[in-house]
């Protein structure tokens, strides 16, 4: 097994990281292993990946994966800005941004929204546990109304839903999953990586230490009970033939930018991820019925990623040299002459 490699010749180990120091059973660790599997199975060369994060247990988790990829652990809530600059400097890497609900829905909500608005080219994963794990269990902005904290106090504020917000902001790829559903999650990670532009993936990721009690909607028992997958997901990378068994009409197929396909096997009536109003309605209905809707909730084709909006040359800016960057003596002299 040890010498098994993917199509690019990398072994699973090339995608792994040092052992996690998170609490045993933390949802974030499950997500870590799904990211590792997804990258390995897609055969993405590790040096073509870059991992970015903010601050929190969730943000810390990128330490424990992809140790052959460059990583950058930013300041609290500001991961999207790093991604914005990195993408402008080099649009040929795949960026995986990992954040928490506190990181993205509280301190970093502005950066979250503007990264979506710019269509920053990255897979943006929010490891959502409804609490501040790292600072020991305070409420985050995604904590349920009237939720009880680890210490017994009650949350009097309305929760904020990043999936709903991302759809409203026009993100081209918006999905939700659950750390305990490795199959669905891995498919969504792969699809998010194959997608060009901002892919928002909110993952319910229970904090076993501070927010895993029965009444929390971000606990293992609750999600297992209330998860409503919109579809069964199949991901077919560009280098594989489609062999999934489904009858036409039972599934929707989404062709992603690198030629991969995401197959949504319908579980629910006529769910069409391209219908924005319907997506918002389904979410709203889910909240009312205390159901957690998972799957690819919204998908918009052909939204230009930020580096294309910037109309940059094909060569990454950071690879340009003096020859490309310094105006010629003639150009410079002409400019000086105009200023005389």
């Amino acid at each position, binding site marked *: 097994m040890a010498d098994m490699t993917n199509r690019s010749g990398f072994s699973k180990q*090339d995608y792994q990281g*040092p052992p996690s120091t998170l609490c045993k059973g933390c949802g974030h660790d499950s997500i870590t292993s799904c990211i590792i599997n997804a990258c390995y199975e897609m055969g993405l*060369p*590790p*040096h*073509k990946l*870059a991992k*970015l994060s903010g601050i929190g247990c969730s943000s810390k988790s990128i*330490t424990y994966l*992809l*140790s*052959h*990829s*460059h*990583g*950058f*652990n*930013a*300041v609290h809530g*500001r991961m*999207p*800005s*790093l*991604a*914005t*600059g*990195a*993408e*402008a*400097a*080099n649009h*040929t*890497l795949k960026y995986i941004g990992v954040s928490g609900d506190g990181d993205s829905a509280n301190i970093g909500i*502005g*950066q979250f*929204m*503007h990264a979506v608005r710019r269509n920053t080219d990255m897979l943006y994963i929010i490891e959502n546990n409804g609490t501040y794990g790292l600072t020991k269990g305070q409420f985050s902005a995604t904590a349920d109304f009237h939720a009880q904290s680890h210490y017994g106090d009650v949350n009097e504020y309305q929760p904020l839903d990043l999936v709903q917000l991302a759809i409203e902001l026009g993100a081209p790829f918006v999905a939700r999953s659950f750390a305990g559903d490795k199959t669905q999650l891995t498919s969504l990670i792969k699809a998010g990586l194959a997608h060009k532009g901002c892919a928002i993936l909110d993952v319910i990721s229970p904090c076993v230490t501070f927010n895993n009690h029965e009444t929390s909607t971000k606990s293992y028992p609750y999600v297992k009970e209330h998860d409503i997958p919109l579809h069964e997901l199949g991901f077919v990378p560009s280098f594989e033939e489609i062999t999934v068994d489904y009858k036409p009409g039972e599934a929707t197929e989404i062709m992603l930018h690198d030629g991969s396909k995401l197959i949504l096997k319908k579980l629910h009536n006529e769910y069409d991820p391209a219908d924005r109003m319907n997506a918002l309605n389904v979410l709203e209905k889910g909240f009312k019925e205390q159901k957690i809707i998972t799957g690819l909730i919204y998908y918009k084709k052909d939204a230009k990623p930020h*580096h294309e909006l*910037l*109309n*940059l*040359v*094909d060569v*990454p*800016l*950071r*690879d*340009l040299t*003096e020859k*490309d*960057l*310094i*105006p010629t003596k003639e*150009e*410079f*002299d002409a*400019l*000086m002459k105009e*200023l*005389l």
Partner: protein
Amino acid sequence: MSTPQKIVNNFTIKIATINGTGSQSANNILFKTLVRMGIPTSAKNLFPSNIQGLPTWFYIRTNPKGYQSMKRHSEVLIAVNPASMGQDLAEVHPGDVVIYDETTLNIGTPKENVTYYPVPLTKIAKNTFDTPRLRSLLTNTLYVGVMAEIFGLDKNILRSVIEDSFKKKQKAIDVNLKAIDLGIQYAKEHLPKKDPYSYEKIKNAKPQIVIEGNAATALGCIMGGCTVDAWYPITPASSLNEAMDSYGQRLRTDPETKKKKIAVIQVEDELCAIGAAIGAGWMGARAMTASSGPGISLMSEFLGLAYYAEVPVVIVNVQRVGPSTGMPTRTQQADILKCAFASHGDNRHILLFPATVKEAFELGAKSFDIADRLQTPVIVMTDLELGMNYWASEPFNYLKGPFDRGKVLTLKDLENIKSFGRYADIDKDGIPYRTLPGTPHPLAAYFTRGTGHTEIAGYSEDPTVYRTNMLRLEKKFHTAPQYLPKPIVLGDAKAKIGIISAGTNDHAIQEALDDLKIKKTSLKYLRVLAYPFHKEVKDFIKTCDKVIVIDHNRDSQLATLIKLQFCDIAPKIFPIAYSDGLPLDPDFISHKIEEAIAHG
């Protein structure tokens, strides 16, 4: 009354207008005309934090010695703003000249020994031009015409400046030329010359460019290879980023594909601006942001990350008056200490202090070499005075590179080494080696973090590891000066009294020193261009009995910074600190230096 002696090319004109009425364009035409006449000229725009309606003043000083500071007294007043008239007239001295808009200003009882030239500017504009906008705009051009006649501007040069200023907009050229002619005509017919002031063309003067300070810094950044500028609008830094954008369009667009070799991104705030610049710097691009006080304060947390994680990035701080929102359109250098130590914990940042547009251009370019070489933030400390004024300057020298990209390990380098430690001090100069993301080698990757880290960038809370790393960062700071521009020393080498300053204070200081030289005071003067300070600064202080450090802030920030670095000679330092939002006044500085010397 006998005609007083002629005063040629040696007086200041103050133009008092209303913000937002288009006087800027007329004033720049006037400025450029004088520059093209070969006369040493400087201009200061004193404008309010307002879009339209508040008083604004434009000072044009000509002076044979080329002094560029702002004198507090102007010999000629052009008054077209009723709102500021009272204040403007109160500042008029005997011997001065007042040209005013007779239609809108009632100046009351004339002062004795003051020459008045009443001109019905508004009325002429009303009778000549059909739209209110044109009338308002061209009232300004009219007074330039009047001045041309009274003070003897070269009319051909004036016309050529107008033609160049409104390139390709024939209609604008036509109406402006018309307004100029009307002004000239009116003066010829109604205003016989009664005052001694005049301009005379200087033959064989070296041609000078006219450029805004922020544009000069931006052009430097372009020459220095900047490819990512992330920014958020703020006075007085916006025009720098806008210049990055327009120079980018002009100089960094592929002629065939029309694609760009630069990303100028207006983001949601300064947190994102600095974050994006750091993200790009980490990725290996030459990246920057430009802002001012409030924005720089917001950037603090990220600056500490870039310092500790050792990411090259350039920040231009076009300083304005604080604290808080302060006076956004006034000038000051009160961010020196904040920028030197920005962010929590032990930080020290590289600062550069340009004084002129030429230096802004050169240091703008060089800042990227320094950031790459030292792998740390470099803060270019300009100010509103330099940034938002237009300056005459000798043309800039072409900078052909090469860039110093610092210690970056390429794939080839990695193939020849056994191990790579991102924060290992291989060369014992405190500067580690870095790799860029995307380098296809198993050794290349490391984890950039703001948490305590080992030489191989692993997480660590180990006391020795922490301290060793912090001491290495300090060593890097000691290595820094050899890569930084050296101080400039002027004056009498044997003098026992020294002056030290930085940035735009130079203009007032140079003039004050000339004044004191006439009074036989022997002085030498050192101007720092960078922090950390070179050994030369200490040597300079050592040769003096007393060193007067001149600061453009309340709290003697530059003096404090010098004392911190050279604490053993701190007692020799005598600070002069003054700031009221205006550029430093040479007369005041001269007087203060005399006082300081007398102080014993």
